[in-house]
């Protein structure tokens, strides 16, 4: 047993070796973040949302919903985009992007739900929505069920790697065969709830600034999740190819750069689809006059500064094969998606309220979310080092 543990969990080292090998500065920083984060979690559980957060009756949803759920789930879309392209449409060239993409989706969703537990007033009742009491007309009900199903789907897609690691050949083959079905349903389910996250705000027509409120909110969320997903694939693969280089048996840099450029092309197309939809939306609601206000400038910053500008830079860098610039721009795009989620759920929400009465998070809210991000990174690293995700 201890032999198995040393082999599988500690990568063939004994405990002392393992710990001394991991005593690095980065791990130490992660530990500090986790300490603050766990303090915040405990504090919230013991004293409640009131003392731990700046949430109020006017702002029932704050940083946790905006960052952990709305932004987080959009960034966890790689599984949707790459999983679809590779398994469904047989773009085999991109196959080695698929397993890491699915793993990051799986971790993204699991930890989004984990973070959500701290925002729910009665977290211990969360299973009510699955099997006890159904609010069938609620968009949140749709999301809850989709999260539940999508985590199962991601698990099925991840299991082949997992059972390969455990050395259970039968289970591995079984789940490999299930994979295509999981992907088919994964596309439907992921598409459904990415749009439903935008749909959540359809019920607040008078509360969200007209520049952000639209009947197309679900579509905007879906399309922006697609480009967030592709951007995250590029970011992730860049980082993991740097960090886990020793794991890659055969690594062809030129080929990898080409694939990245290919992804960037898809990214540009989706960014422009989004932009066209945005312009149509402005015209349909005849909202152009709002652009000449403070909220209008902020809106322009989001759409021009974080969608149009990176799209143009991407076109240029794809043409001139500047892979480094592509990688930089994807960070830019992802920042834009996070900004958009904050805009819809916090900044444009209750837009008529004077600035000094608006919500801002407490340090505990930020610490908890940072801790969750750290946990995702740590788990990702833990799994990648042990299972065949990258190769």
């Amino acid at each position, binding site marked *: 047993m201890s032999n198995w543990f040393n082999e599988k969990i500690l990568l063939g080292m004994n405990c002392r070796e393992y710990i001394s090998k991991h005593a690095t500065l980065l791990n130490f920083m992660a530990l500090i973040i986790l300490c603050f984060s766990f303090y915040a979690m405990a504090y919230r*559980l*013991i004293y409640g949302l009131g003392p731990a957060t700046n949430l109020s009756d006017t702002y029932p949803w704050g940083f946790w919903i905006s960052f952990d759920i709305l932004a987080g789930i959009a960034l966890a879309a790689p599984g949707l985009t790459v999983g679809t392209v590779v398994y469904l449409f047989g773009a085999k060239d991109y196959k080695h992007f698929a397993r890491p993409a699915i793993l990051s989706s799986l971790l993204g969703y699991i930890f989004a739900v984990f973070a959500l537990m701290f925002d729910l007033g009665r977290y211990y009742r969360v299973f009510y929505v699955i099997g006890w009491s159904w609010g069938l007309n609620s968009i949140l009900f749709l999301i809850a069920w989709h999260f539940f199903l999508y985590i199962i789907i991601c698990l099925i897609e991840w299991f082949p790697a997992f059972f390969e690691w455990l050395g259970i050949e039968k289970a591995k083959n079984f789940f490999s065969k299930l994979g295509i079905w999981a992907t088919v349903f994964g596309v439907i389910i992921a598409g459904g709830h990415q749009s439903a996250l935008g749909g959540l705000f359809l019920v607040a027509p008078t509360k969200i600034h007209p520049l952000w409120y639209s009947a197309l909110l679900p579509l905007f969320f879906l399309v922006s999740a697609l480009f967030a997903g592709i951007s995250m694939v590029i970011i992730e693969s860049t980082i993991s190819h740097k960090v886990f280089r020793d794991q890659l048996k055969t690594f062809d840099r030129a080929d990898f750069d080409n694939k990245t450029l290919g992804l960037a092309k898809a990214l540009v197309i989706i960014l422009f689809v989004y932009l066209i939809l945005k312009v149509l939306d402005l015209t349909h609601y005849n909202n152009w006059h709002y652009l000449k206000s403070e909220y209008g400038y902020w809106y322009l910053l989001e759409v021009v500064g974080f969608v149009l500008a990176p799209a143009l830079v991407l076109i240029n860098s794809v043409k001139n094969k500047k892979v480094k610039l592509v990688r930089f721009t994807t960070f830019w795009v992802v920042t834009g998606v996070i900004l958009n989620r904050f805009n819809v759920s916090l900044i444009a929400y209750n837009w008529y309220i004077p600035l000094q009465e608006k919500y801002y998070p407490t340090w505990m809210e930020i610490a908890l979310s940072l801790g969750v991000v750290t946990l995702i990174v740590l788990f990702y690293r833990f799994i990648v080092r042990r299972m065949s995700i990258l190769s």
Partner: protein
Amino acid sequence: MNRREFFKRSLTIAGSLLIARNSNASDQPLSVYSTQNKANKKNWEKFEELKKTNSQIDESYAVLVDITKCIGCRRCEWACNEWNKNPNRPVKEFEASKDEKPSVFDRVRRTHAGEFTVVNRFHSKNKPVYVKKQCMHCAEAACLNACFVDAFKKTPQGAVLYNPSLCVGCRYCMIACPFDIPAYEYYNALTPQITKCTMCFDRVTDGKVPACVESCTSDALIFGKRSEMLKLAYNTINKNPERYINHVYGEHEAGGTNWLYISQIPFEKLGFPELDKTPIPAHSKSFLFTVKVLEVVAAAPLVWGAYYMISKNRSKKEGKKDE
């Protein structure tokens, strides 16, 4: 300063220091901290009990608020707290706030965990206008529709009730409510509830009028069948067209509500949201329908078909290559 005044002041200062311990809490009313609301459970049990008896109600009730008559005495707030066992103070303190400076009226308030109704003061041509605020009890309530565990119910009597034994505490109802009514027990770590006006369902079903209506001494609140209240509202307006604007707020707003208001000045100047006839749930309905159609009927065959076509094409191509 006499001795009594001195004690009063020092107590106030000590009290505010105690509250101010919590960073930004000093400007929040005490009612925010109130927890363990009893009204929710009581009303819900009554609702469950009545469901068994199967008594028929032919029409829902409504409260008509005549804003021109309200004198800002805040007795309705006091009576509401009293009946629902919310934190309360002597009624004299409520009545005094009209002439006090500084006064609770200096800022526009909203409902909180231990405060189901509030009266706000607005000004029209330098004359004060008092507006009572509480749950509007919509015919097609946004909160009810938003709830993902179905913890809200619209009763035949008109009240929208909340079931604390189902609520998960997601607070989506608070996002959805266009009137900013549902409040939350943020200072309860384990069993927080949503709180709001229950339209005194427990009193109404006993043949009484809501506590606030009973306590109103200026005839600003009138309780009765909704159709009769609407008739009364229009009669009042038509009799004094120079005194009222021709608009009954709540008749059509967001699909109609069980609280109705008439006023001398436009409602948007009194903090009422400008809503059209569309019930809030209608905004999400078509999306939900689309999702259902797509996911249940269309998506699976479509996606599978696309996969099938593509893989067939590919195997053809690969076959050709092999030849």
